[in-house]
């Protein structure tokens, strides 16, 4: 049970389960998001990330488990929860016929934002959209629409920001702008829950990540901890046709695998890779520290199952 004192915790989930008929979308997911923290939900398409997010504000009814958002149960108090959160959904769902300003005014009204005009102007400026305030949504680029969706989520100055694949399909400039906003938001003591397919994004933003596969959490921890635990060391990447030359010099304790038609070797120290290069005479395309993507692929990437 969740005690009364936890009621200020933005997200406190314990064993949350969601079934659609026989299909188990989410199985016993437990996680907490504290203020000033950013937590990432990672996992393949269909792993249950969006399902969990829907549970938080009542657009998905959980089948089991305990879930509290600011101490409130979304099954009963969705409205009061929604007064305190901002959501960037996977789809922008902006009103295409309306202008930027009209869209934001409507949402400010939905959120019951007082002093909406100033707030909108502030946020538009913050996202470098102020020159577009009278433009129709359909005339905006994908990156502008996404930035506007962030403006919409931030209108009510929420205590918890929920981002569902916030930067999918965006160019690097927009992505960096949005990362910067999320980081400063987190720094301001707000809580952030983000789902993403970009491991670099997760490493950059998240204090903690949960990797989901088939609705089950397969790893939980800070990006650094997970790398240390699952795929420690350094990765050398080579042309595939060099595999033979490399293999005779490999230590049995190292792991090797093929990725995107490149042969990869993961060794505990960078020195091992340098020694390998000297011994085999094969120059690596790249040598880098192991990252979250290595962890992700190790834990989820073996097979493309039915959820693909």
């Amino acid at each position: 049970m969740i005690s009364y004192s936890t009621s200020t915790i933005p997200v406190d989930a314990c064993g949350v389960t969601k079934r659609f008929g026989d299909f188990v979308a989410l199985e016993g997911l437990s996680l907490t998001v504290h203020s000033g923290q950013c937590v990432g939900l990672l996992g393949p398409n269909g792993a249950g990330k969006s399902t969990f997010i829907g549970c938080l504000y009542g657009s998905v009814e959980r089948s089991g488990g305990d879930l509290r958002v600011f101490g409130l149960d979304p099954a009963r108090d969705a409205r009061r929860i929604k007064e305190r959160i901002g959501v960037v959904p996977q789809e922008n769902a902006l009103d295409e016929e309306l202008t930027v300003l009209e869209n934001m005014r409507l949402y400010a009204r939905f959120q019951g934002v007082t002093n909406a005009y100033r707030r909108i102007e502030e946020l538009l400026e913050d996202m470098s959209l102020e020159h577009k305030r009278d433009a129709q949504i359909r005339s905006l680029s994908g990156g502008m629409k996404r930035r506007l969706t962030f403006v919409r989520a931030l209108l009510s100055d929420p205590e918890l920001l929920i981002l569902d694949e916030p930067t999918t399909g965006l160019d690097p400039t927009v992505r960096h702008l949005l990362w910067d906003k999320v980081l400063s938001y987190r720094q301001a003591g707000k809580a952030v829950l983000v789902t993403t397919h970009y491991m670099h994004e997760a490493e950059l933003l998240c204090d903690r990540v949960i990797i989901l596969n088939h609705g089950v959490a397969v790893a939980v921890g800070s990006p650094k901890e997970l790398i240390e635990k699952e795929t420690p060391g350094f990765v050398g990447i080579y042309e595939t046709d060099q595999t033979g030359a490399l293999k005779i010099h490999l230590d049995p304790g190292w792991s090797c695998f093929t990725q995107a038609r490149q042969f990869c070797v993961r060794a505990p120290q960078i020195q091992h890779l340098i020694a390998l290069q000297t011994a085999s005479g094969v120059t690596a395309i790249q040598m880098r520290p192991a990252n979250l993507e290595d962890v992700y692929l190790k834990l989820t990437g073996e097979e493309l199952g039915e959820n693909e």
Partner: protein
Amino acid sequence: MSDFLVSLRLAWRVVVRNWVVYRKDFLANISPTLADPALMMTALGMGLSPYIGSIHDLTYSQYLAPGMVATTVLFTAFFECSYGFYVRMTFESVFKAMLTTPIGTREVVWGEFIWVSIRAALMAGGVGIVLALLRLLPNPWAVFLFPLIGGILAIPCGAIGLLASSYVRNINQFQTVYSFLIAPMYFISGIFFPLGDRPILKAIVQVSPFFHGVSLLQMAAWNQFSPAGIFYHLGVMLVYALTLGYWSLIRIRKKLVN
């Protein structure tokens, strides 16, 4: 503030949203609901009146007149809640964003009902004024009753639209709903011909909420009120408004909440 009032206030914001979008394309949006009754009055009223004797001591144009009010109400409410709602729900994903704000499914559905009810009431009033100016209303004061009756009639008509939205698997299936439910309900409703001397037909139409709205509009237009008639038709219409409205709320919630 009570839960009911909070919901009502949030539902009103949904109404405002619909209005803001509607007025963007005002002329295109309002045209069919005005053109249909006008064309019908011309073709059937003006065109056929000379060939048809009087019905209940009315010219055929006068007989047809209240039906035009009913027409605009039915089509305003049904199309807004079927095609209009379905497009908002499916293609524009409007509710995916809206439901992340304090607005919930109840407010979405209430908002739709208030929206079509107000629109239908205004259209009923507008059509009524034109009919009165054309001297087609034996009781011109009916103009003041049309919005009231139209506003209530819009609820069951809109609810049928929402229910259709919740059952169809793609947008083309609305045509089936139109052909097998809306069109029969419309053409056999007493608008175009009196049902009085056809007992079987008359028995069947009693299940149609639209028929009862038409009956009330006709009573008002022709100044043929009877307390029993008002009580019966209004009662049935209200029961339909509540039951179909509630059913559509349950269905739409199922669509919007997984």
